[in-house]
């Protein structure tokens, strides 16, 4: 069964376009999606997934299982950075370990969306509130990452007032103000803000002016699958370009970025079983735990932990963990789900 799931995933349009992108880089094609078109697709996908999630949340309501699941997801986004940090610290300095740990505590929306498409093809149900879980897992991981980085900073690296003056960083008069910046990066960075905002709007429209839902449908629902294919074509190109950077990454990090996903997915499976989630929600929960952020978290880490090397956390999350999850992870997690989680 598992191998047929892998095949079904490999032969789906989104994954094939992802391969097309990867292959293009490997064989030396000059195919590229010029900037800012990838941004257009990334904004579109966040808006659409948020809106649809909010819409379904309005239908399902905020019952106890919904709240429990969301709570479990947020807890995972706090715990995964901690355990990852301890492991990464074996080989990396505190800054890099903290930044990478934050990335793996957080999520990749495109991996989540690809998993949803996969469930759609398999005709397995899942719930809109999983998008709420997705939306709420970015910020905690960022906050934990920053705390870990500060805690592991050498004593003399704490910024002195003089430093801050020179830095021209007008907003930071002291530690408390520094926190404002961290929270801003964690909760207000563009992608988190758009996702949560669209979720709220989807909820409000579904609750108060349902006539609008049908009019949004061609944009947020019908177009979605094709736009995902187009974006995955670009993701394939970018992921393959990042693969080249892995030379400087080292075997330890490569191992981490390929082993962390299935391990975190297994923990996600356990939690899902305890929560009594259905098969579809379980797969999505596993994917949330297994995936790593290459948009919101890197943007935040770059600003708040500039000592860490961005190419380490971007290359692992985007060049290895993302392809692993999209190509092998999703069908693998689905096979586990089918084995351990009873149908409906």
């Amino acid at each position, binding site marked *: 069964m598992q191998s047929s799931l892998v095949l079904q995933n490999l032969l789906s349009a989104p994954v094939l376009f992802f391969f097309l992108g990867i292959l293009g880089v490997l064989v030396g094609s000059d195919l590229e*999606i010029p*900037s800012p078109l990838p941004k257009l697709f990334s904004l579109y996908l966040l808006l659409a997934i948020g809106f649809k999630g909010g819409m379904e949340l309005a239908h399902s309501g905020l019952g106890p299982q919904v709240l429990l699941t969301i709570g479990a997801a947020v807890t995972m986004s706090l715990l995964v950075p901690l355990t990852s940090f301890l492991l990464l610290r074996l080989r990396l300095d505190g800054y890099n370990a903290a930044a990478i740990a934050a990335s793996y505590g957080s999520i990749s929306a495109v991996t989540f969306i690809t998993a949803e498409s996969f469930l759609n093809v398999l005709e397995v149900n899942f719930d809109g509130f999983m998008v709420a879980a997705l939306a709420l897992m970015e910020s905690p991981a960022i906050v934990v990452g920053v705390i870990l980085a500060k805690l592991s900073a050498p004593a003399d690296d704490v910024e002195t007032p003089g430093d801050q003056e020179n830095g*021209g960083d007008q907003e930071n008069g002291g530690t408390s103000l520094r926190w404002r910046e961290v929270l801003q990066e964690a909760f207000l960075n563009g992608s988190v803000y758009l996702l949560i905002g669209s979720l709220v709007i989807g909820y409000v429209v579904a609750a108060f002016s349902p006539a609008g839902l049908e009019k949004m449908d061609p944009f947020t629902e019908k177009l979605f699958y094709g736009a995902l294919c187009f974006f995955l074509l670009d993701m394939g190109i*970018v992921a393959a*370009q990042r693969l080249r950077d892995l030379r400087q990454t080292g075997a330890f990090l490569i191992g981490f970025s390929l082993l962390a996903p299935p391990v975190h997915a297994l923990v996600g499976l356990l939690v899902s079983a305890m929560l009594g989630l259905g098969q579809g929600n379980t797969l999505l929960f596993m994917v949330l735990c297994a995936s790593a952020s290459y948009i919101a978290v890197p*943007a935040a*880490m*770059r600003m708040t932990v*500039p000592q860490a090397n*961005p190419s380490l956390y971007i290359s692992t999350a985007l060049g290895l963990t993302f392809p692993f999850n999209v190509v092998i992870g999703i069908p693998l997690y689905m096979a586990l789900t089918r084995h351990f989680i009873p149908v409906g």
Partner: protein
Amino acid sequence: MKRIDLFLSERELNRVCKAITAAGAKGYSVMRHVTGMGPSGEISEGMDFSGLGANAHVVVFVEDALLAAVGKALRPLLKRYGGVGFVSSAEPL
């Protein structure tokens, strides 16, 4: 007058522009979507959508007297976040 050219990640753009204005410069220009290579590796256009972002190119024309102030404001930012800055001479047209 002096011409200052800065190349840095667009993530830090806001801070850099604020620092330029705070240092007393009357104007600046910004070009986004810049790619390139530097001490900390290659920045390709494909990263524009990711958290890494692309680079930005900032050009500032200032009176000679202001150069020191702008330089003092910018150097720590470039040191902290990466990026390069260069100065040359120019005259108003």
